[in-house]
C-alpha cells in the first residue's frame, strides 16, 4: 500500500475502538486481544460509535455489522457517517452473520475486512494489525463471495482494469477461500506475503469500486442492492 500509517507496524501498538452492542462480547474481545492492541474506546450504538470514533481517531475500529441506534443502518451507517475519516481510521467488520448481504454491504461501505465473531483472539489480533497496516483482511467466506461475484474464469482481455480480477488475484482469492493464510498463499504461489497483501488490497478496491455488471447482477440476485 502506498501510505503507511505510523502506528501500523505489527510491533507497535494499535489503538482500537470496539463497537458492539453486547457488553459481554466487548469485554470478552478486549480480554482476547493481544497486548499490542490498546483498546481506547467502546461503543454500543451507532451514535455512540460515531462520537467515540471521531473523538479518539483510532487506528482500527472493530465494527459489528448489526448495531442499534441511528437510522437503523447498523455498521454500514457508522461507516457512511465516518466516511471523511476513512483515510485515517480503518474499519474491520465483525459479525456473527456471514450472509452475503451483510458482508458485501459493509465492505462496499468502506470496511477493510470482514471476520466472523467465532475467530480466535490470536487471529483477530493479527487481523487488526493487518488492517492497521492498510491491508485488507479476507475471510474464506468473503473470498468466496468475491469469486462468486466476479466469476472464477480467467479472462484474457482486461479492457476495464477496475472490473476484472487478474489471474493472480483470482488465484489468491481461491487459495484464501480454501482456508489458506496469507503466509500459506505466499508459499504456495512463490511470492512474498507483501505481494499477497497487495493482491488482496487490489481485490478489495475492486470490490468496493466496481460497478461491474456481473457484480450488480450477482448482488441483485441476492437482493443486496
Amino acid at each position, binding site marked *: 500500500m502506498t501510505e503507511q500509517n505510523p502506528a501500523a507496524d505489527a510491533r507497535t501498538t494499535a489503538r482500537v475502538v470496539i463497537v458492539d452492542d453486547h457488553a459481554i462480547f466487548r469485554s470478552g474481545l478486549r480480554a482476547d486481544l493481544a497486548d499490542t492492541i490498546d483498546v481506547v474506546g467502546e461503543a454500543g450504538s451507532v451514535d455512540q460509535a460515531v462520537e467515540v470514533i471521531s473523538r479518539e481517531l483510532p487506528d482500527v475500529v472493530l465494527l459489528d455489522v448489526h448495531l442499534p441506534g441511528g437510522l437503523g443502518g447498523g455498521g454500514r451507517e457508522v461507516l457512511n457517517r465516518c466516511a471523511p475519516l476513512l483515510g485515517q481510521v480503518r474499519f474491520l467488520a465483525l459479525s456473527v*452473520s*456471514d*450472509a452475503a448481504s451483510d458482508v458485501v454491504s459493509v465492505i462496499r461501505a468502506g470496511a477493510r475486512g470482514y471476520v466472523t465473531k*467465532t475467530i480466535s483472539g490470536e487471529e483477530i489480533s493479527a487481523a487488526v494489525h493487518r488492517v492497521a497496516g492498510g491491508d485488507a483482511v479476507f475471510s*474464506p*467466506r468473503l*473470498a*468466496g463471495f468475491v*469469486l*462468486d461475484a466476479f466469476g*472464477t*474464469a480467467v479472462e484474457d482481455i482486461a479492457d476495464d482494469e477496475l472490473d476484472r480480477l487478474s489471474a493472480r488475484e483470482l*488465484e489468491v482469492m*481461491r*487459495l484464501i*477461500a*480454501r*482456508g*489458506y493464510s496469507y503466509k*500459506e498463499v505466499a508459499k*504456495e*504461489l*512463490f511470492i512474498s506475503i507483501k505481494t499477497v497483501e497487495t493482491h488482496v488490497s487490489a481485490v478489495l478496491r475492486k470490490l468496493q469500486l466496481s460497478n461491474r455488471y456481473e457484480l450488480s447482477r450477482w448482488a441483485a440476485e*441476492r437482493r443486496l442492492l
Partner: protein
Amino acid sequence: MKTAAERPPLVRSGDRVIAGVCGGLAAHLGWPVKFVRLGMIVAALAGGAGLVFYGWLWTMVPTADEDAQRRAPRPASPIAPAVSAPEVPPDGAQTAQAASGEGAGTARRRPWHPPQRGRDRTIPYGKEVLLGVGLLLLAAILIARQLGVEVPLGTLIPVAAILGGAAIAWMQLDETRRAHLVDRTKADQAGGWVRLLAGLALVMAGVLVMVSGAGSWEQTWLALLASVTVLGGVGLVLLPWGLKFWKDFEAERAGRIRETERAEIAAHLHDSVLQTLALIQRRAGSEQDVVRLARAQERELRTWLFGDTNRDAGLLAERIRAAAAEVEDTHGHAVDVVCVGDAPLSERHEALVQAAREAMLNAVRHGGGAVSVYLECSDRGAEVFVKDRGPGFDPDAVPADRMGVRESIIGRMQRHGGTAVILSDEDGTEVRLSLPAPQGHDEPEPAKPEPRNGDHA
C-alpha cells in the same frame, strides 16, 4: 349419520354437477356416483324428498377444501398453533404471551381443538334451526297439498326465491367472514361475487314479483326503478361505513398475519435455540459437546435466517454443506464450507460428495484446527478442496489396507473420471478433488501425489 372409521370423510366433492353432494356421498359410501345420482333423482321425483335431502346435505356438508382447512395439520411447533390460527384473538400481545407461556410450560403438542370447536358448533347450529324450520314448512305444504288443501303457490314461490337468494348471499358472507382463509377467499373472489349477485338478483326478483303481484310490466318497471333508487340511496349512505368496516377488517387481518409470523419465529426460537441453550447448560462440563451443540445450532439458525429458499436442495453445494454438517455433528469439530457456484447433482457429483465427505472425516479425525472445505463449480467442472491444520502425514506411507484414502477418495474419484490429490506437510493436509465436466476437453491429470508446489487450481 353413521360414519365408519375407515370411510373417507363426508365432504362435498370438487368433481361436481350441482354442488358436489352426490359425488361426495358416493365417495363416502363407496358406491358408484352414477347410482347415487340416479337414486337422488328418483328420490327427487318421489314427492321432492330427494331435493330436500340434497339441499340438506348441501348446507350441512363442508366442501373438501373447507374440510381440509378445518383439519389442516397445525404447524409442527408446539406453540405456533396457539397463535397461528386464532379465530378471534382477544389481543395480539396477550395471545403471544399466552402462547409462549404455554410453550415453555406444558410444552409438547397436544391436540388442538378448543376455540375452533366452539365456533364450528355455533354456526351450524343456527343453520340447523333455520333449515329445520324451512323443512317443516315444506313438509307442511306438501302434506297440505296431499290432503287436497289449496296452497297459494303464487305467493310461496316468490317467498322461496327470496329465502333461497338470501341464503346464497348469506352463505357467501359467512365465507368471507372466515378471515383466516385469506387465500381461499381471494382465489374464489370472482365466484364469490357471482354468487352474491345471483343471490341479490333472486331476492330482488322475488320481492318484485311478490309486490307487484304478478301485475303488469309497467308496474314492475316502476317498482324496479323505485327499488333501485332506494337501494342506491341506502348504498350511498352506507358506503363510508362499509369502507371503514372493510379497512378495519383489512387492518385486523394484516395484524393477524404479522402476529402469526411473530408466533412462528417465537416457535422456532423456542424449538431450536432455547432447547440448545438448555442442553448446553446441562453439558457445560464437556467442551466438545458444547462446541458441537453450538455449531449445530448455529448452522440450523443460519439456514433458517439466511437460507436461500429459492435454492434447490438437490444441488451440489447443498450436498457438500450437508456432508460437512454431518461430519461436524458426529465429531464435534468445526468444518467451514465455502461454495462458489453450484451445479445440479449428477451421479458423478454424488461420488464427488462421497469422496469429499471421506476427506472431511479424515481431516476431522486425524487433522486438527479448523477444517476448511471449498467447492468451486464452473463450466469446466467441479473442484473440492478439504484442508486441515493437523500434523500431516505421508500419503505414500499409508498402508494399502487403509481403505479410507486409497479407495474412498482416490479410487472413487478415478472411477468417475476425476482426480484426487493429497498434499500433506507439517502445516496440515489438503485433499484436492477435481471432477471435470463430462464433455470437458481438458484431460484430467493422472492421480498421483504431486510435489508440494504443484498448484493446479
